Protein backbone atom coordinates (compact mmCIF):
# COMPACT_ATOMS: atom_id res chain seq x y z
CA UNK A 1 0.00 0.00 0.00
CA UNK A 2 1.06 3.57 -0.59
CA UNK A 3 -0.31 6.93 0.52
CA UNK A 4 0.31 10.32 -1.06
CA UNK A 5 0.31 13.21 1.41
CA UNK A 6 -0.25 16.72 0.02
CA UNK A 7 1.98 19.28 1.74
CA UNK A 8 0.58 22.65 2.82
CA UNK A 9 3.14 25.45 2.74
CA UNK A 10 3.82 29.00 1.54
CA UNK A 11 6.85 28.16 -0.66
CA UNK A 12 9.16 29.16 2.19
CA UNK A 13 8.13 27.01 5.09
CA UNK A 14 6.31 23.73 5.47
CA UNK A 15 3.21 24.02 7.63
CA UNK A 16 2.85 21.88 10.72
CA UNK A 17 -0.51 20.62 9.38
CA UNK A 18 1.54 18.53 6.94
CA UNK A 19 3.34 16.73 9.80
CA UNK A 20 -0.01 15.95 11.41
CA UNK A 21 -1.33 14.60 8.14
CA UNK A 22 1.70 12.31 7.90
CA UNK A 23 0.81 10.93 11.35
CA UNK A 24 -2.71 10.20 10.14
CA UNK A 25 -1.29 8.53 7.01
CA UNK A 26 0.90 6.36 9.26
CA UNK A 27 -2.19 5.21 11.16
CA UNK A 28 -3.71 4.29 7.79
CA UNK A 29 -0.58 2.32 6.86
CA UNK A 30 1.72 1.74 3.88
CA UNK A 31 4.52 3.75 2.29
CA UNK A 32 4.17 7.50 2.56
CA UNK A 33 5.25 9.95 -0.13
CA UNK A 34 4.79 13.69 0.23
CA UNK A 35 3.90 15.95 -2.70
CA UNK A 36 5.26 19.49 -2.51
CA UNK A 37 3.71 21.58 -5.28
CA UNK A 38 4.87 25.19 -5.35
CA UNK A 39 7.04 27.83 -6.91
CA UNK A 40 10.67 28.10 -5.80
CA UNK A 41 9.70 25.69 -3.06
CA UNK A 42 12.95 23.71 -2.94
CA UNK A 43 13.46 24.46 0.75
CA UNK A 44 9.98 23.15 1.51
CA UNK A 45 10.69 19.91 -0.37
CA UNK A 46 13.90 19.50 1.65
CA UNK A 47 11.96 20.06 4.86
CA UNK A 48 9.32 17.51 3.86
CA UNK A 49 12.09 14.93 3.39
CA UNK A 50 13.00 15.32 7.06
CA UNK A 51 9.58 14.26 8.34
CA UNK A 52 9.79 10.89 10.08
CA UNK A 53 8.30 8.01 8.16
CA UNK A 54 8.39 9.59 4.69
CA UNK A 55 9.63 7.34 1.84
CA UNK A 56 10.19 10.07 -0.72
CA UNK A 57 9.20 13.59 -1.63
CA UNK A 58 7.72 14.48 -5.01
CA UNK A 59 8.52 18.07 -5.90
CA UNK A 60 6.53 19.86 -8.61
CA UNK A 61 7.22 23.44 -9.69
CA UNK A 62 5.13 25.92 -11.68
CA UNK A 63 3.45 29.33 -11.69
CA UNK A 64 0.00 27.91 -10.94
CA UNK A 65 1.35 26.07 -7.92
CA UNK A 66 2.65 29.17 -6.17
CA UNK A 67 -0.83 29.61 -4.71
CA UNK A 68 -1.82 25.96 -5.19
CA UNK A 69 -4.75 26.83 -7.45
CA UNK A 70 -7.39 24.13 -7.24
CA UNK A 71 -7.58 23.32 -10.95
CA UNK A 72 -3.83 22.98 -11.25
CA UNK A 73 -3.60 20.81 -8.14
CA UNK A 74 -6.31 18.55 -9.56
CA UNK A 75 -4.45 18.22 -12.86
CA UNK A 76 -1.24 17.39 -11.01
CA UNK A 77 -2.57 14.96 -8.41
CA UNK A 78 -5.13 12.90 -10.36
CA UNK A 79 -2.61 11.18 -12.70
CA UNK A 80 -0.26 10.51 -9.76
CA UNK A 81 -3.01 8.50 -8.08
CA UNK A 82 -2.34 5.52 -10.39
CA UNK A 83 0.49 4.73 -8.00
CA UNK A 84 -1.35 5.25 -4.69
CA UNK A 85 -4.17 3.70 -2.68
CA UNK A 86 -5.00 6.88 -0.81
CA UNK A 87 -4.35 10.59 -0.80
CA UNK A 88 -4.34 12.53 2.48
CA UNK A 89 -4.33 16.31 2.82
CA UNK A 90 -4.69 18.57 5.83
CA UNK A 91 -8.18 20.06 6.27
CA UNK A 92 -6.74 23.56 5.88
CA UNK A 93 -8.24 25.93 3.33
CA UNK A 94 -5.76 24.44 0.81
CA UNK A 95 -6.92 20.87 1.42
CA UNK A 96 -10.60 21.81 1.59
CA UNK A 97 -10.30 23.72 -1.65
CA UNK A 98 -8.37 21.19 -3.75
CA UNK A 99 -9.17 17.68 -2.59
CA UNK A 100 -12.88 17.37 -3.52
CA UNK A 101 -11.85 18.06 -7.14
CA UNK A 102 -9.43 15.15 -6.97
CA UNK A 103 -12.10 12.92 -5.43
CA UNK A 104 -14.68 13.82 -8.08
CA UNK A 105 -12.20 13.09 -10.88
CA UNK A 106 -11.37 9.71 -9.31
CA UNK A 107 -15.11 9.11 -8.85
CA UNK A 108 -14.78 8.52 -5.12
CA UNK A 109 -16.45 10.09 -2.09
CA UNK A 110 -14.06 12.21 -0.09
CA UNK A 111 -13.95 11.60 3.63
CA UNK A 112 -13.70 15.11 5.07
CA UNK A 113 -11.99 16.31 8.22
CA UNK A 114 -11.30 12.95 9.86
CA UNK A 115 -10.59 12.81 13.58
CA UNK A 116 -9.73 9.11 13.77
CA UNK A 117 -8.80 6.04 11.73
CA UNK A 118 -9.99 2.50 12.36
CA UNK A 119 -8.32 0.63 9.53
CA UNK A 120 -7.90 1.14 5.82
CA UNK A 121 -11.55 1.78 5.02
CA UNK A 122 -13.08 3.10 8.25
CA UNK A 123 -12.76 6.64 9.56
CA UNK A 124 -14.21 8.83 12.30
CA UNK A 125 -15.37 12.35 11.58
CA UNK A 126 -17.26 14.95 13.57
CA UNK A 127 -20.64 16.08 12.22
CA UNK A 128 -23.25 18.59 13.39
CA UNK A 129 -20.68 21.01 14.77
CA UNK A 130 -18.95 18.22 16.64
CA UNK A 131 -22.11 17.21 18.50
CA UNK A 132 -21.90 13.74 16.99
CA UNK A 133 -19.04 11.58 15.79
CA UNK A 134 -19.78 9.52 12.71
CA UNK A 135 -17.82 6.39 11.90
CA UNK A 136 -17.97 5.79 8.14
CA UNK A 137 -16.78 2.92 6.03
CA UNK A 138 -15.78 3.66 2.45
CA UNK A 139 -16.41 1.19 -0.36
CA UNK A 140 -14.31 3.18 -2.84
CA UNK A 141 -11.13 1.60 -4.22
CA UNK A 142 -9.06 4.71 -3.54
CA UNK A 143 -9.49 6.90 -0.49
CA UNK A 144 -9.44 10.68 -0.58
CA UNK A 145 -9.16 12.03 2.95
CA UNK A 146 -8.74 15.40 4.65
CA UNK A 147 -7.34 15.40 8.16
CA UNK A 148 -8.36 17.47 11.19
CA UNK A 149 -5.07 18.79 12.57
CA UNK A 150 -6.10 18.91 16.21
CA UNK A 151 -6.80 15.16 16.25
CA UNK A 152 -3.30 14.00 15.31
CA UNK A 153 0.15 14.79 16.77
CA UNK A 154 2.76 16.19 14.41
CA UNK A 155 5.23 13.61 13.07
CA UNK A 156 8.81 14.23 14.20
CA UNK A 157 11.75 15.31 12.07
CA UNK A 158 14.54 12.77 11.86
CA UNK A 159 14.05 11.46 8.35
CA UNK A 160 16.16 11.86 5.25
CA UNK A 161 13.88 10.97 2.35
CA UNK A 162 15.08 11.73 -1.16
CA UNK A 163 13.47 14.46 -3.24
CA UNK A 164 12.37 13.58 -6.77
CA UNK A 165 11.45 16.36 -9.17
CA UNK A 166 8.32 15.65 -11.22
CA UNK A 167 6.68 17.42 -14.14
CA UNK A 168 3.64 19.54 -13.41
CA UNK A 169 0.86 20.41 -15.86
CA UNK A 170 1.36 24.04 -16.84
CA UNK A 171 -2.17 24.85 -17.95
CA UNK A 172 -3.61 27.10 -19.22
CA UNK A 173 -6.07 27.14 -16.33
CA UNK A 174 -9.34 29.07 -16.18
CA UNK A 175 -8.57 30.81 -12.92
CA UNK A 176 -5.76 33.21 -12.14
CA UNK A 177 -4.30 34.61 -8.97
CA UNK A 178 -4.81 38.35 -8.58
CA UNK A 179 -3.65 39.32 -5.10
CA UNK A 180 -3.43 38.28 -1.50
CA UNK A 181 -3.70 40.10 1.80
CA UNK A 182 -1.88 38.02 4.33
CA UNK A 183 -1.39 39.47 7.76
CA UNK A 184 2.23 39.02 8.79
CA UNK A 185 2.62 38.44 12.47
CA UNK A 186 5.21 37.14 14.89
CA UNK A 187 2.51 35.45 16.92
CA UNK A 188 2.12 31.69 16.82
CA UNK A 189 -0.26 30.34 14.18
CA UNK A 190 -3.78 29.87 15.56
CA UNK A 191 -4.34 26.18 14.81
CA UNK A 192 -1.01 25.01 16.21
CA UNK A 193 -0.52 27.50 19.07
CA UNK A 194 -0.09 26.16 22.60
CA UNK A 195 -2.09 29.06 23.98
CA UNK A 196 -4.99 30.96 22.44
CA UNK A 197 -6.73 34.11 23.68
CA UNK A 198 -10.07 34.73 21.98
CA UNK A 199 -12.33 37.73 22.26
CA UNK A 200 -16.05 38.04 21.53
CA UNK A 201 -18.74 40.54 20.81
CA UNK A 202 -18.45 41.96 24.33
CA UNK A 203 -15.24 43.78 23.37
CA UNK A 204 -17.45 46.26 21.51
CA UNK A 205 -14.88 47.67 19.07
CA UNK A 206 -11.65 46.92 17.25
CA UNK A 207 -9.90 49.48 19.48
CA UNK A 208 -10.93 47.65 22.64
CA UNK A 209 -10.10 44.28 21.09
CA UNK A 210 -6.60 45.52 20.29
CA UNK A 211 -6.23 47.25 23.65
CA UNK A 212 -7.32 44.27 25.79
CA UNK A 213 -7.00 40.96 23.93
CA UNK A 214 -3.75 41.57 22.06
CA UNK A 215 -1.56 42.54 25.08
CA UNK A 216 -2.82 39.53 27.04
CA UNK A 217 -1.97 37.29 24.11
CA UNK A 218 1.47 38.91 23.80
CA UNK A 219 2.13 38.39 27.51
CA UNK A 220 1.22 34.72 27.16
CA UNK A 221 2.95 34.18 23.82
CA UNK A 222 -0.48 33.14 22.60
CA UNK A 223 -2.27 33.25 19.27
CA UNK A 224 -5.31 35.52 19.00
CA UNK A 225 -8.73 34.14 18.12
CA UNK A 226 -12.24 35.53 17.94
CA UNK A 227 -15.89 34.55 17.83
CA UNK A 228 -17.83 34.97 14.64
CA UNK A 229 -19.69 37.91 16.16
CA UNK A 230 -16.37 39.70 16.78
CA UNK A 231 -15.16 39.00 13.25
CA UNK A 232 -18.45 40.01 11.63
CA UNK A 233 -18.34 43.27 13.55
CA UNK A 234 -14.83 43.94 12.26
CA UNK A 235 -13.02 43.72 15.63
CA UNK A 236 -10.71 41.02 14.24
CA UNK A 237 -9.80 39.68 10.77
CA UNK A 238 -11.73 36.75 9.29
CA UNK A 239 -8.91 34.24 9.70
CA UNK A 240 -9.11 34.67 13.50
CA UNK A 241 -12.55 33.01 13.65
CA UNK A 242 -12.65 29.92 15.82
CA UNK A 243 -15.54 27.52 15.36
CA UNK A 244 -17.52 25.14 13.20
CA UNK A 245 -17.12 27.32 10.17
CA UNK A 246 -13.79 28.86 11.13
CA UNK A 247 -10.67 27.29 12.58
CA UNK A 248 -10.50 24.29 14.85
CA UNK A 249 -8.06 24.73 17.73
CA UNK A 250 -7.00 22.54 20.65
CA UNK A 251 -4.31 24.42 22.59
CA UNK A 252 -2.98 23.66 26.08
CA UNK A 253 -5.00 26.61 27.32
CA UNK A 254 -7.82 28.57 25.68
CA UNK A 255 -9.11 31.89 27.02
CA UNK A 256 -12.69 32.76 25.97
CA UNK A 257 -13.22 36.41 26.83
CA UNK A 258 -16.65 37.95 26.42
CA UNK A 259 -17.77 34.95 24.39
CA UNK A 260 -21.12 33.36 25.21
CA UNK A 261 -20.29 29.82 24.05
CA UNK A 262 -22.64 29.17 21.11
CA UNK A 263 -22.44 25.57 19.79
CA UNK A 264 -20.76 26.83 16.62
CA UNK A 265 -18.01 28.42 18.70
CA UNK A 266 -17.64 25.43 21.03
CA UNK A 267 -17.19 23.20 17.97
CA UNK A 268 -13.90 24.95 17.32
CA UNK A 269 -12.33 24.89 20.80
CA UNK A 270 -13.88 22.31 23.08
CA UNK A 271 -10.96 19.91 22.67
CA UNK A 272 -8.62 22.44 24.30
CA UNK A 273 -6.84 20.98 27.35
CA UNK A 274 -7.75 23.80 29.73
CA UNK A 275 -10.51 26.32 29.03
CA UNK A 276 -10.72 29.64 30.87
CA UNK A 277 -13.85 31.76 30.50
CA UNK A 278 -14.30 35.36 31.54
CA UNK A 279 -17.88 36.50 31.22
CA UNK A 280 -20.08 38.80 33.26
CA UNK A 281 -23.11 36.54 32.89
CA UNK A 282 -22.79 33.57 35.24
CA UNK A 283 -25.37 31.68 33.15
CA UNK A 284 -23.33 31.95 29.92
CA UNK A 285 -23.07 28.50 28.27
CA UNK A 286 -19.29 28.86 27.98
CA UNK A 287 -19.09 28.11 31.72
CA UNK A 288 -20.48 24.62 31.05
CA UNK A 289 -17.25 23.68 29.28
CA UNK A 290 -14.78 25.92 31.13
CA UNK A 291 -12.31 24.45 33.62
CA UNK A 292 -11.96 27.86 35.25
CA UNK A 293 -14.71 30.41 35.04
CA UNK A 294 -14.43 33.98 36.22
CA UNK A 295 -17.68 35.89 36.44
CA UNK A 296 -16.49 39.44 35.94
CA UNK A 297 -16.54 42.48 33.72
CA UNK A 298 -13.80 41.83 31.19
CA UNK A 299 -12.88 45.50 31.01
CA UNK A 300 -11.59 45.20 34.59
CA UNK A 301 -10.53 41.56 34.66
CA UNK A 302 -8.45 41.44 31.49
CA UNK A 303 -6.06 44.31 32.28
CA UNK A 304 -5.71 42.91 35.77
CA UNK A 305 -4.88 39.49 34.36
CA UNK A 306 -2.38 40.93 31.90
CA UNK A 307 -0.65 42.79 34.74
CA UNK A 308 -0.63 39.73 36.98
CA UNK A 309 1.29 37.59 34.50
Amino acid sequence: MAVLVIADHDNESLFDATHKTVTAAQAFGGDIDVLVAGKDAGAVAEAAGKIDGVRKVLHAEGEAYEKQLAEAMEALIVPLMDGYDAVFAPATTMGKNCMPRVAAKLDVMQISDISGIEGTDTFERPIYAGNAIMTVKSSDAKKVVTVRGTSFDAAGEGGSASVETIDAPAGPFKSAFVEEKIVQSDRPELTSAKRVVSGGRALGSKEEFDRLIVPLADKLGAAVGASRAAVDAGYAPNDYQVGQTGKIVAPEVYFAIGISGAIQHLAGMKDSKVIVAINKDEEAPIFQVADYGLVADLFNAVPELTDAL
Partner: protein
Amino acid sequence: MKVLVPVKRVIDYNVKVRVKSDESGVDLANVKMSMNPFDEISVEEAVRLKEKGAVEEIVVVSIGPQQAQETLRTALAMGADRGILVKTDDTVEPLAVAKILKGVVEEESPNLVILGKQAIDDDSNQTGQMLAALLDWPQATFASEVVLEDGKATVTREIDGGLQTLALETPAIVTTDLRLNEPRYASLPNIMKAKKKPIDEKAPGDYGVETAARLSVVKVTEPPQREAGEKVEDVAELVSKLKSKGAL
Protein backbone atom coordinates in the same frame (compact mmCIF):
# COMPACT_ATOMS: atom_id res chain seq x y z
CA MET B 1 -26.30 36.01 -17.13
CA LYS B 2 -28.02 33.18 -15.39
CA VAL B 3 -27.19 31.91 -11.91
CA LEU B 4 -27.94 28.50 -10.45
CA VAL B 5 -28.09 28.22 -6.66
CA PRO B 6 -28.30 24.78 -5.04
CA VAL B 7 -30.01 24.94 -1.63
CA LYS B 8 -30.05 22.22 0.99
CA ARG B 9 -32.62 21.56 3.68
CA VAL B 10 -30.81 20.94 6.96
CA ILE B 11 -31.46 20.87 10.67
CA ASP B 12 -31.83 24.44 11.95
CA TYR B 13 -28.55 25.83 13.27
CA ASN B 14 -30.09 26.56 16.68
CA VAL B 15 -31.00 22.93 17.30
CA LYS B 16 -28.61 20.89 19.40
CA VAL B 17 -28.75 17.43 17.89
CA ARG B 18 -29.11 14.26 19.91
CA VAL B 19 -27.46 11.02 18.96
CA LYS B 20 -29.87 8.06 18.84
CA SER B 21 -29.28 5.47 21.53
CA ASP B 22 -28.87 2.68 18.95
CA GLU B 23 -26.01 4.72 17.40
CA SER B 24 -27.63 4.61 13.96
CA GLY B 25 -27.65 8.35 13.51
CA VAL B 26 -29.01 11.53 15.02
CA ASP B 27 -32.61 12.08 15.97
CA LEU B 28 -34.22 14.20 13.27
CA ALA B 29 -37.83 13.46 14.23
CA ASN B 30 -39.76 16.67 14.88
CA VAL B 31 -36.71 18.93 14.83
CA LYS B 32 -36.87 22.27 13.10
CA MET B 33 -35.43 22.21 9.58
CA SER B 34 -34.26 25.29 7.66
CA MET B 35 -32.26 26.29 4.65
CA ASN B 36 -28.53 25.72 5.15
CA PRO B 37 -27.29 29.16 6.34
CA PHE B 38 -24.56 29.29 3.69
CA ASP B 39 -27.19 28.68 1.02
CA GLU B 40 -29.18 31.68 2.27
CA ILE B 41 -26.00 33.66 1.71
CA SER B 42 -25.74 32.21 -1.84
CA VAL B 43 -29.34 33.12 -2.66
CA GLU B 44 -28.83 36.61 -1.25
CA GLU B 45 -25.72 37.09 -3.38
CA ALA B 46 -27.54 35.98 -6.52
CA VAL B 47 -30.43 38.34 -5.76
CA ARG B 48 -28.02 41.24 -5.20
CA LEU B 49 -26.31 40.49 -8.52
CA LYS B 50 -29.72 40.55 -10.16
CA GLU B 51 -30.64 43.83 -8.47
CA LYS B 52 -27.39 45.30 -9.79
CA GLY B 53 -28.36 44.21 -13.28
CA ALA B 54 -25.47 41.76 -13.63
CA VAL B 55 -27.82 38.75 -13.70
CA GLU B 56 -31.15 38.15 -15.43
CA GLU B 57 -32.40 34.88 -14.00
CA ILE B 58 -31.90 32.92 -10.78
CA VAL B 59 -32.76 29.23 -10.69
CA VAL B 60 -32.67 27.38 -7.36
CA VAL B 61 -32.38 23.62 -7.05
CA SER B 62 -32.67 21.27 -4.11
CA ILE B 63 -32.04 17.56 -3.92
CA GLY B 64 -34.02 15.92 -1.18
CA PRO B 65 -37.44 14.80 0.02
CA GLN B 66 -40.78 16.46 -0.81
CA GLN B 67 -40.28 18.87 2.12
CA ALA B 68 -37.24 20.35 0.37
CA GLN B 69 -39.88 22.23 -1.62
CA GLU B 70 -40.31 24.50 1.42
CA THR B 71 -36.63 25.35 1.20
CA LEU B 72 -37.09 26.21 -2.49
CA ARG B 73 -40.10 28.41 -1.62
CA THR B 74 -37.97 30.29 0.89
CA ALA B 75 -35.39 30.95 -1.82
CA LEU B 76 -38.12 32.04 -4.25
CA ALA B 77 -39.48 34.41 -1.60
CA MET B 78 -35.99 35.92 -1.24
CA GLY B 79 -36.00 36.69 -4.95
CA ALA B 80 -35.10 33.62 -7.00
CA ASP B 81 -37.19 33.16 -10.17
CA ARG B 82 -37.92 29.46 -10.34
CA GLY B 83 -37.09 26.18 -8.66
CA ILE B 84 -36.19 22.59 -9.43
CA LEU B 85 -36.82 19.84 -6.89
CA VAL B 86 -34.86 16.68 -7.56
CA LYS B 87 -36.89 14.41 -5.39
CA THR B 88 -35.37 11.53 -3.47
CA ASP B 89 -35.89 10.06 -0.02
CA ASP B 90 -32.39 8.57 0.06
CA THR B 91 -29.43 10.27 1.72
CA VAL B 92 -27.46 11.61 -1.20
CA GLU B 93 -23.72 12.02 -0.77
CA PRO B 94 -21.91 15.12 -2.09
CA LEU B 95 -20.47 13.18 -5.06
CA ALA B 96 -23.94 12.13 -6.20
CA VAL B 97 -25.30 15.62 -5.46
CA ALA B 98 -22.52 17.03 -7.65
CA LYS B 99 -23.38 14.58 -10.44
CA ILE B 100 -27.06 15.54 -10.32
CA LEU B 101 -26.10 19.24 -10.29
CA LYS B 102 -23.92 18.61 -13.35
CA GLY B 103 -27.02 17.29 -15.11
CA VAL B 104 -28.98 20.38 -14.06
CA VAL B 105 -26.16 22.65 -15.28
CA GLU B 106 -26.13 20.91 -18.66
CA GLU B 107 -29.87 21.55 -19.02
CA GLU B 108 -29.90 25.09 -17.69
CA SER B 109 -26.51 26.43 -18.91
CA PRO B 110 -25.95 28.94 -16.10
CA ASN B 111 -22.92 31.26 -16.21
CA LEU B 112 -22.38 30.92 -12.49
CA VAL B 113 -23.27 28.35 -9.84
CA ILE B 114 -23.19 29.66 -6.27
CA LEU B 115 -23.14 27.03 -3.50
CA GLY B 116 -22.57 27.17 0.24
CA LYS B 117 -19.05 26.35 1.39
CA GLN B 118 -20.42 23.67 3.67
CA ALA B 119 -23.71 22.26 4.84
CA ILE B 120 -23.97 22.60 8.61
CA ASP B 121 -25.29 19.07 9.14
CA ASP B 122 -22.61 16.93 7.57
CA ASP B 123 -19.91 19.67 7.35
CA SER B 124 -18.43 17.98 4.26
CA ASN B 125 -17.33 21.09 2.38
CA GLN B 126 -16.99 19.36 -0.98
CA THR B 127 -20.04 19.60 -3.24
CA GLY B 128 -19.07 22.82 -5.04
CA GLN B 129 -15.50 21.73 -5.67
CA MET B 130 -16.69 18.34 -6.95
CA LEU B 131 -19.14 20.00 -9.32
CA ALA B 132 -16.36 22.26 -10.61
CA ALA B 133 -14.18 19.24 -11.34
CA LEU B 134 -16.98 17.29 -13.05
CA LEU B 135 -17.67 20.28 -15.30
CA ASP B 136 -13.99 21.24 -15.71
CA TRP B 137 -14.91 24.73 -14.55
CA PRO B 138 -12.79 27.09 -12.47
CA GLN B 139 -13.76 27.59 -8.83
CA ALA B 140 -13.44 30.13 -6.06
CA THR B 141 -14.36 28.69 -2.68
CA PHE B 142 -15.06 30.54 0.63
CA ALA B 143 -16.01 33.78 -1.11
CA SER B 144 -16.29 37.05 0.81
CA GLU B 145 -16.72 39.23 -2.29
CA VAL B 146 -17.94 38.50 -5.82
CA VAL B 147 -17.69 40.95 -8.71
CA LEU B 148 -19.07 40.06 -12.16
CA GLU B 149 -17.69 42.12 -15.02
CA ASP B 150 -17.06 41.54 -18.71
CA GLY B 151 -17.75 37.83 -18.44
CA LYS B 152 -15.21 37.46 -15.63
CA ALA B 153 -15.81 36.76 -11.97
CA THR B 154 -13.37 38.38 -9.56
CA VAL B 155 -13.72 36.66 -6.22
CA THR B 156 -12.10 37.39 -2.86
CA ARG B 157 -11.69 34.26 -0.73
CA GLU B 158 -11.25 33.75 3.01
CA ILE B 159 -8.13 31.61 3.35
CA ASP B 160 -6.08 30.51 6.36
CA GLY B 161 -3.71 33.48 6.47
CA GLY B 162 -6.08 36.20 5.27
CA LEU B 163 -7.75 37.06 1.97
CA GLN B 164 -6.97 35.97 -1.59
CA THR B 165 -8.42 37.30 -4.84
CA LEU B 166 -8.83 35.16 -7.96
CA ALA B 167 -10.07 36.04 -11.43
CA LEU B 168 -12.18 33.31 -13.04
CA GLU B 169 -13.36 32.83 -16.57
CA THR B 170 -17.07 32.08 -16.62
CA PRO B 171 -18.87 29.77 -16.42
CA ALA B 172 -17.57 29.23 -12.92
CA ILE B 173 -18.33 27.87 -9.46
CA VAL B 174 -18.36 30.03 -6.34
CA THR B 175 -18.88 28.80 -2.78
CA THR B 176 -19.94 31.29 -0.13
CA ASP B 177 -18.43 32.14 3.24
CA LEU B 178 -20.06 33.95 6.15
CA ARG B 179 -18.83 37.45 5.39
CA LEU B 180 -20.16 37.63 1.83
CA ASN B 181 -23.43 39.30 2.83
CA GLU B 182 -26.25 39.33 5.35
CA PRO B 183 -29.25 37.50 3.91
CA ARG B 184 -32.56 39.35 3.89
CA TYR B 185 -35.77 38.13 5.44
CA ALA B 186 -38.48 37.52 2.87
CA SER B 187 -41.34 40.00 3.15
CA LEU B 188 -44.91 38.77 3.41
CA PRO B 189 -45.88 39.98 -0.08
CA ASN B 190 -42.82 38.23 -1.49
CA ILE B 191 -43.72 35.02 0.35
CA MET B 192 -47.18 35.22 -1.24
CA LYS B 193 -45.68 35.89 -4.68
CA ALA B 194 -43.28 32.97 -4.26
CA LYS B 195 -46.23 30.59 -4.01
CA LYS B 196 -46.97 31.29 -7.65
CA LYS B 197 -43.44 30.85 -8.92
CA PRO B 198 -42.86 27.58 -10.78
CA ILE B 199 -41.10 24.56 -9.26
CA ASP B 200 -40.23 21.68 -11.60
CA GLU B 201 -40.07 18.21 -10.18
CA LYS B 202 -37.39 15.76 -11.29
CA ALA B 203 -35.77 12.53 -10.11
CA PRO B 204 -32.06 11.63 -9.91
CA GLY B 205 -32.74 9.10 -12.68
CA ASP B 206 -33.71 11.95 -15.04
CA TYR B 207 -30.05 12.91 -14.96
CA GLY B 208 -28.88 9.33 -15.19
CA VAL B 209 -27.37 9.49 -11.71
CA GLU B 210 -27.09 6.47 -9.46
CA THR B 211 -27.31 7.67 -5.83
CA ALA B 212 -26.07 4.49 -4.14
CA ALA B 213 -23.86 5.51 -1.22
CA ARG B 214 -20.10 4.99 -1.25
CA LEU B 215 -19.83 5.58 2.45
CA SER B 216 -21.78 3.52 4.91
CA VAL B 217 -22.36 4.75 8.41
CA VAL B 218 -20.94 2.25 10.89
CA LYS B 219 -22.17 4.21 13.87
CA VAL B 220 -22.86 7.68 15.16
CA THR B 221 -21.79 8.33 18.74
CA GLU B 222 -21.66 11.13 21.27
CA PRO B 223 -18.37 12.96 21.51
CA PRO B 224 -16.67 12.83 24.92
CA GLN B 225 -18.51 15.30 27.14
CA ARG B 226 -16.66 18.03 28.95
CA GLU B 227 -17.53 18.64 32.56
CA ALA B 228 -18.02 22.15 33.83
CA GLY B 229 -15.08 23.05 36.06
CA GLU B 230 -15.00 25.53 38.89
CA LYS B 231 -15.72 29.20 39.27
CA VAL B 232 -12.87 31.31 40.58
CA GLU B 233 -13.41 34.39 42.76
CA ASP B 234 -10.95 36.77 41.18
CA VAL B 235 -8.00 37.20 38.86
CA ALA B 236 -5.48 36.27 41.56
CA GLU B 237 -7.19 32.93 42.16
CA LEU B 238 -7.39 32.30 38.40
CA VAL B 239 -3.66 32.89 37.99
CA SER B 240 -2.74 30.65 40.92
CA LYS B 241 -5.06 27.86 39.73
CA LEU B 242 -3.63 28.03 36.22
CA LYS B 243 -0.10 27.96 37.61
CA SER B 244 -0.73 24.95 39.80
CA LYS B 245 -2.32 23.18 36.84
CA GLY B 246 0.85 23.88 34.84
CA ALA B 247 -1.13 25.82 32.25
CA LEU B 248 0.94 28.99 32.54
